[in-house]
Each structure stands twice: as structure tokens, then as C-alpha cells.
């Protein structure tokens, strides 16, 4: 499936000007929102890459492509055409829509304002731009979640359900990341999961509430997310002790 010319894990060539504009300009809002300067910084360390690679191997995710800070539209369109898990009719309609933004408004530049770290089920590709292991594993969690579904397109369609569509998928991925680090006994990463993934999840809840009352309160909803995440972080020793029982 993958070859030397098309490896499973690929990194984009670093371009200082492009990556700097992406990190210091377009990604500012997302960094403030999640209170972490590494969000969408377009400079993923080797250590972070290894964490995701190991997760992918442990979870038997042999067909999922991972792009570390890479913009590869031609390769993505090829992957779309080759992805047999999705029926052709849907690949070339819904799948096409999913790639148009990637192609013409690349996350490589605009991550934070338009797009960012994400998993595309139509091409079975993880695209990451943040040097934050918990976010990398969260995206890996999406790939793992989709890999376990019999009807991938239907499962992807659930994301589009108004108000609550995204909440289920994001909960699965966040839950998987937290459990992964807990199982590995990595308390520092588990703390970071609560600090970053919990407020990130609350943006989806905020979006859902915003959908209901037609007001953009996503930004305000992140505050309770930060509070709850830090509150849960304090109980990590208790949680780890309960696991060992």
C-alpha cells in the first residue's frame, strides 16, 4: 500500500517564511484560544512525530497516511480516488468537497483561521501542524475511530448533523487520547490532555449551543472548558490509582 516514494509518514519541507507567517499571524487566535504557543506552529519535533507513529503502529492503522506540516494536494486527490472504503459516487461528490478547501486554502498557511490539525476520512489522511503530542494522538484517535466503522461514509455524515453532529466524533477521539496516555502512565501528557483537549472540546459544545440560539458563543464557551480541564487535571493521581485496581 505504501512505498518508498509514498511512505505512510511524511513531513513537509520546512519553509521558514511560509511557516512563520502561518504560526505568528494566522494561528494567533487559535494559540490564544487554547493557550498554547505550539498550536499550529508548523514545526513538529521528531519526538512528537515518534509518539504519533507509535500510536498508529500499536493500533494497527496500516492504511492511514500521516502528513506532518505538509501540503500535498496532488497526492491527496490520488488518495481520494484510491480509497475503496468509500463508494465512488460519494468519493467524487462529498469527498471532493472535503478536499477543495485543503487545495485552495491550505492549512499549511492558514491553519488556525481556516482549518488546522484534522483527519480526512475520505482520503484516510491525518494532517497535523501543531507540535502538541496530545493533539497528534487526538487526530490519530479519529483515524482509529473511523477504521473501526463498517459504514465509513455514514459515520462521516453524522459529523454534519446540525447542533450535535461533531460532538460524538470529537468525544471518541478525545477519550482515546486521554486513555492512551493514562495506559502509558504518562501523567504529563494526561495533564496536557486536560489542559488542551478539554477546552478544545468545549468549542464544539459552544458551537452546538450557538447553533441553537444562533449566537456565536463558541469563544465564550471555551472558558468553562479551561476551568473544567484544569479541575480534572488535579484528580489525575486518583484516576491513575483507580486504573491500577
Amino acid at each position, binding site marked *: 500500500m505504501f512505498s518508498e516514494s509514498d511512505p505512510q509518514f511524511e513531513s513537509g519541507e520546512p519553509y521558514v517564511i511560509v511557516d512563520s507567517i502561518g504560526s505568528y499571524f494566522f494561528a494567533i487566535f487559535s494559540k490564544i484560544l487554547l493557550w498554547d504557543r505550539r498550536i499550529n506552529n508548523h514545526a513538529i519535533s521528531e519526538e512528537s512525530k515518534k509518539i504519533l507513529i*507509535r500510536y498508529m*503502529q*500499536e*493500533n*494497527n492503522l*496500516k492504511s492511514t497516511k500521516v502528513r506532518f506540516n505538509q501540503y500535498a494536494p496532488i497526492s491527496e486527490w490520488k488518495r481520494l480516488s484510491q480509497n475503496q472504503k468509500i463508494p465512488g459516487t460519494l468519493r467524487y461528490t462529498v469527498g471532493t468537497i472535503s478536499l477543495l478547501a485543503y487545495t485552495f486554502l491550505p492549512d499549511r498557511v492558514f491553519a488556525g483561521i481556516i482549518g488546522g490539525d484534522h483527519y480526512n476520512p475520505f482520503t484516510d489522511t491525518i494532517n497535523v501542524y501543531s507540535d502538541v503530542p496530545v493533539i497528534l494522538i487526538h487526530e490519530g484517535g479519529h483515524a482509529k475511530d473511523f477504521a*473501526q*466503522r*463498517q*459504514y465509513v461514509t*455514514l*459515520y462521516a*455524515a*453524522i459529523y454534519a*448533523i*446540525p*447542533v*450535535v453532529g461533531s*460532538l*460524538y*466524533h*470529537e*468525544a*471518541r477521539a*478525545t*477519550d482515546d487520547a486521554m486513555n492512551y496516555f493514562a495506559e502509558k502512565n504518562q501523567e504529563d501528557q494526561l495533564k496536557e490532555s486536560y489542559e488542551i483537549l478539554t477546552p478544545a*472540546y468545549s468549542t464544539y*459544545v459552544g458551537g*452546538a*449551543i450557538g447553533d*441553537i440560539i444562533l449566537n456565536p458563543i463558541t469563544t465564550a464557551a471555551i472558558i468553562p472548558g479551561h476551568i473544567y480541564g484544569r479541575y480534572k487535571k488535579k484528580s489525575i493521581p486518583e484516576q491513575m490509582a483507580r486504573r491500577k485496581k
Partner: protein
Amino acid sequence: MQYRWIWSFILFLGCYSPSLRIYRPYPDEVTFTKVDFFPKVIVLAPTEFPEALLDHDLRRKKILKNEYGNWESLVYKELSLHPKNYPKLLQGGKIQILEFELSSVDSCFSHKASVKLKAEYSIGNEALRYFEYEDQSKNYNSNCILGLSSLTLVPLLWFIPYLGFQGNSEDQLNQLGRNAISAFFLELEKNSGKSN
């Protein structure tokens, strides 16, 4: 208003299209192309494993087949991938699965997924050993609650995240099944002379 019913129905379908994917997750997984046959290792199971019972609302029962194969496939795959972990077993042995139950039962406002595994095995000329594993997960991930929440919409804001973090019936079945298999293979490794 009508589109909400359609979307809820699609959501139901998403939950009602389960598949069983039980295998042993393993660190540093490597690519493999062929599962070997081990004539000296006999694997017996009472039924075509693993079958799982889904018993949800409206008394709709469904039997699922594991997409990763039956017990023999799972054991031979494990031996093919990690032969160094089973030096004694590869010389000869017998594994008999006495009982394997995997079920997901909805009682409208509660849900219980459970797994029970009983097996006997012998490695070489050693005495017969017995293995037993049981686990269950009780929660509120039921289709009744999902349906009622969909009707009133606002409770979905609580229930969908809850469903996501708990996992639906499919997720729970697969996770319990994998835990059972992992525990069994760990036991086999321990008694097969795996070097650390």
C-alpha cells in the same frame, strides 16, 4: 422540523450498523503478509468465534461475526507475528475455548456490555491449565435515551458527549473483546517461556 427526524434516523443507523473487530492490539506492530499454519498447535472452539449478541430495544437481536476471524485465525496470527513470545507453545500445544460470550444488552434506560472467556490449554507435556476472564460495562448508552434526547434535542448536548466518551455498543463490545483476548495471550506468553 422534518429534517431533524431524518438526521436522528441517520444517527440511529450509525449506531445500528455495528461490526465486530476483535484482535490483539500490540505495540510496535509490524507489517505482515501471511499468517502461518502451526500443525503442532491445536485450537478448538465450541462455535465459530467470536459471535456477539446484540440485544437492543424492540427486541431486535443480531449475531455479529468477527471481521478478524475465528479463534484459530487469531491464535495463528499471533504466533506468526510474535513467535519469539511463544517458544514452548510452538513446540506443541492445545488450546480449547470452553466458553466465550460477548453481548450487548439494552434495557431501555440502561445498557450492559459483557464478555466472558473460559479456556483450557496445555503447552508441550505440561499439565492442563485453566483460564477465566470476565468483564462488563454498565452505562446509560441506550437507544431509548438516544431517541428521547433526539425528540427533545437539548438533552442531546449532554447525551452525545456522554455517548462519545463511553463509546456506543459497538465500541464497548470491541473493547471488551480485545481486552479478553489480550489477557488470554498475556497468560499464554507467560507460560510459553517468553523472554523479557
